[in-house]
């Protein structure tokens, strides 16, 4: 059969593939971390507002999340832009085609992001300005909508990033709905892949709670945060073993084979990707019994984050395996724009320094204020 795969752009790649791929994976890793904290964080905030009557800590956590989430949202978006850029350079002909086929849901992401973003702000501002009960009820509804929106956005992403790997399905979708009212329902791995991501997001936000706990001065609240976070991570991660297995089973033959022995790199990634979360869970559980659990917790959280990194690389390996019959970016002509790449690197470092400057100033000032407040008491 003739597949309608567009030819790649006639222009050469403006940088070597290794550089583009490194930046893609690096920025995507950061995007995923923030996205997970956003998706999981809003879900946790929702649970907290529902439980606000029975648990004082829940009220407090909702407040803390309300302060954090708007910034987390901003960085999720900003950090999503960069991988999209690098992805388009390397895999544009697949991504543009699949995006057009699901044009309506794909563009709807923009509207959904805006709505969800304002929803998060609504939640955040209502926490600080009022305590009236009716408003709280409304906050719960808004938060629930935000969670729903974010989950839908993630679902559209899963659709597009699976559809771009399946050119054999494109023509049917195009000729049935050229208007872009499509989703990639006939993809066997769609649902497990999506669930795998969502459960992963909840797990990572559990790690986020643990980190929040570690930074907390007050003992009881600290304890509670760490406990809840560990519980969330452990529960969702154990479930995710099942879902991950389901995902693996639903991959197309050759790709699956690569992960179970056919390809040494893919297989060892899978192995490491299964050991790391186990190590994370083990450390979080051990920390419970420990008197000064900080070390265990830090190791646990680090293993969790490493798991995410491994998953990000695995996802890339999966993409390349799935596209291997049609395309390999390493075969594209390359004409690196080194001068501008250098300029980018310089500005990037300057940007990080500026960021560091601002955050440090805020941190110092916050500490000074907290100390002053304590003195007053």
């Amino acid at each position, binding site marked *: 059969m*003739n*597949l*309608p795969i*567009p*030819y790649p*752009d006639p222009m*050469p*790649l*403006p*940088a070597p593939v290794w550089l583009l791929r490194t930046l893609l994976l690096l920025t995507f890793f950061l995007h995923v971390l923030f996205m997970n904290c956003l998706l999981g964080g809003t879900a946790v905030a929702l649970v907290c507002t529902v439980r606000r009557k029975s648990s004082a800590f829940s009220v407090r956590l909702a407040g803390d999340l309300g302060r954090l989430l708007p*910034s987390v949202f*901003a960085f999720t*978006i*900003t950090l999503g*832009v*960069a991988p999209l*850029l*690098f992805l*388009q*350079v390397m895999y*544009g*002909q697949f*991504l*543009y*085609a699949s*995006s*057009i086929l699901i*044009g309506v849901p*794909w*563009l709807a*992401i*923009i509207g959904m*992001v*805006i709505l969800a*973003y*304002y929803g998060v*702000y609504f939640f955040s501002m209502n926490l600080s300005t009022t305590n009236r009960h009716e408003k709280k009820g409304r906050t719960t509804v808004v938060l629930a909508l935000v969670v729903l929106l974010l989950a839908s956005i993630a679902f559209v992403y899963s659709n597009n990033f699976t559809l771009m790997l399946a050119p054999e399905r*494109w*023509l049917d979708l*195009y*000729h049935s709905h*050229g*208007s*872009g009212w499509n989703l990639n329902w006939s993809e066997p791995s769609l649902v497990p892949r999506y669930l795998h991501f969502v459960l992963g997001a909840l797990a990572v936000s559990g790690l986020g709670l643990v980190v929040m706990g570690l930074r907390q001065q007050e003992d009881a609240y600290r304890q509670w945060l760490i406990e809840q976070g560990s519980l969330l991570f452990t529960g969702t991660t154990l479930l995710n073993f099942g879902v991950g297995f389901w995902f693996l089973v639903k991959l197309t033959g050759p790709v699956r084979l690569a992960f179970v022995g056919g390809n040494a790199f893919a297989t060892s990634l899978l192995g490491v990707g299964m050991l790391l979360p186990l190590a994370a869970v083990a450390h979080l559980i051990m920390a419970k019994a420990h008197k000064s659990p900080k070390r265990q917790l830090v190791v646990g959280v680090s293993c969790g984050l490493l798991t995410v990194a491994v998953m990000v690389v695995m996802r890339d390996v999966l993409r390349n395996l799935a596209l291997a019959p049609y395309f390999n970016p390493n075969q594209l002509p390359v004409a690196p*724009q080194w001068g*501008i*790449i250098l*300029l*980018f690197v310089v*500005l*990037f470092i*300057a*940007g990080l320094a*500026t*960021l560091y400057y*601002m*955050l440090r*100033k*805020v941190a110092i000032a916050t500490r000074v*204020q907290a100390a002053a407040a304590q003195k007053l008491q």
Partner: protein
Amino acid sequence: MNYPVWQLGFPGGLLIAAVAVLHVFISHFAIGGGAYLVLTERRAYSQNDSELLGYVRHHSKFFALLTVVLGAVTGVGIWFTIGLVSPEATSSLIHTFVWGWAIEWVFFFVEIAAALVYAYHWDTLDRQTHLIVGWIYFVAAWASLVVINGIITYMLTPGRWLETGKFWDGFFNPTYWPSLWIRTAMAVGLAGIFGLVTAMWEPPALRERVVRWAGWWLVLGIAPLLPLSRWYFHDFPSYSRAYFSGMYPQVRHALLGAAVCTGVALALALLFALLRPKVMNPVIVAVLLVAGIGVMGSGEYLREFSRYPYVINSYIYANDIRIGQVESIAASGVARTSPWVEGSAADPRADQRHYGRQLFALECGSCHSVDGYRGMRKFARGWDAKFAGEILLHLPVVRETMPPFAGDAHDRAALGSYLASLAPAIPSGTNDKEIGQQVFAIHCAMCHSVGGRRRPLDLKGTDPEAIAGMLGTLSDINPNMPPFTGTDAEGRALAVYLSNSSQ
């Protein structure tokens, strides 16, 4: 050809325009507003004006909310949209400028972080540091304009890039500088509008002070627009400067709109912000806001229209077909070029109209709808398939804004039969002159006018017999003219009409 077409039911260009105007408005406002906030804050400190400080403080949150959310996300939105509507051109932009975008992303990142710190840490940071953060915000925001401006102007005037293919040749292209300063001036003006809008929430005494202060911004932003636009226009490609000669009513209207909006805004700013700030009220502010959107909107429209028939001047047409491709598509046919079309024009069993409809989506749909904006049904009223197939050979003559049709004779026949099926009509009337006028509308009016600006025909008094004879030789008179395909009776009626009409 390379990609599927997103069949929206209306021209994709319209969707881009809708998202872009919203984004352009907010993002320019985000740049100017940054400077406005810091300078107002500084002013409040130096004049020890705690009311004014309270005002900036209060509105900085609203500002962050608007720019960080709507500004940033609609920017991503444009990017999504152009990828859906013009994937080939988007891919080309990304390949040329990916590092420009990467640099812009750095600024974007710093900008967002600074906006959040600025708006939420009035109490935490000392004055000096807070002001510095404000400046960081403004510089990062303006720097992202410095970058994106190179990419936007490149599409209209790629300049030496067309020969060298070098990043910097495309980036610092002929319209780079005038466009940068126009956009900067607009940002300053919009900051003034932001100041006025927010001033309306303040008590009278403070309001008056803020109105006068914001008024200066507005005036300062508007005043240089006219000379800057002339400079900008001077560097336009010559083909698109011709669009401004009066031939295109839509261009005339947009120019008029821009001029009226600018004039009204300047007059209102001088009168009610600088001279009589007491009088300024929400209604006037609303008018200013609308005028601001009007200036931006018509400016963007003119810039987009000037780029027609290209999306990237002399490189890719607005229907996403590469210039270099047109010839090869004409040789091999669309069906063999695009894997996305169903059926084939050469296959006599295939449904020609269905095939033609796909060609319409592929080659015309980015600018024309069927019934709505630039609706084809109204343009093709009365066409027969033969005439439609002929006219497709001359699209750039019909309008300079149109790319040539790319396809072989089968493709033209198929698209022609689809176009002819849109609004079949037989000229009818009580006398030859009436019928002749309709024949003219069907066969000639897309290229000629009688008593108008477009290739006026003045055959008054010419012998109808001679005109009728001439109709058989139109392609000999000028090879850009399709042969007359009407019946003999229609030809005679047309001749009567022409010999009786003049300027």
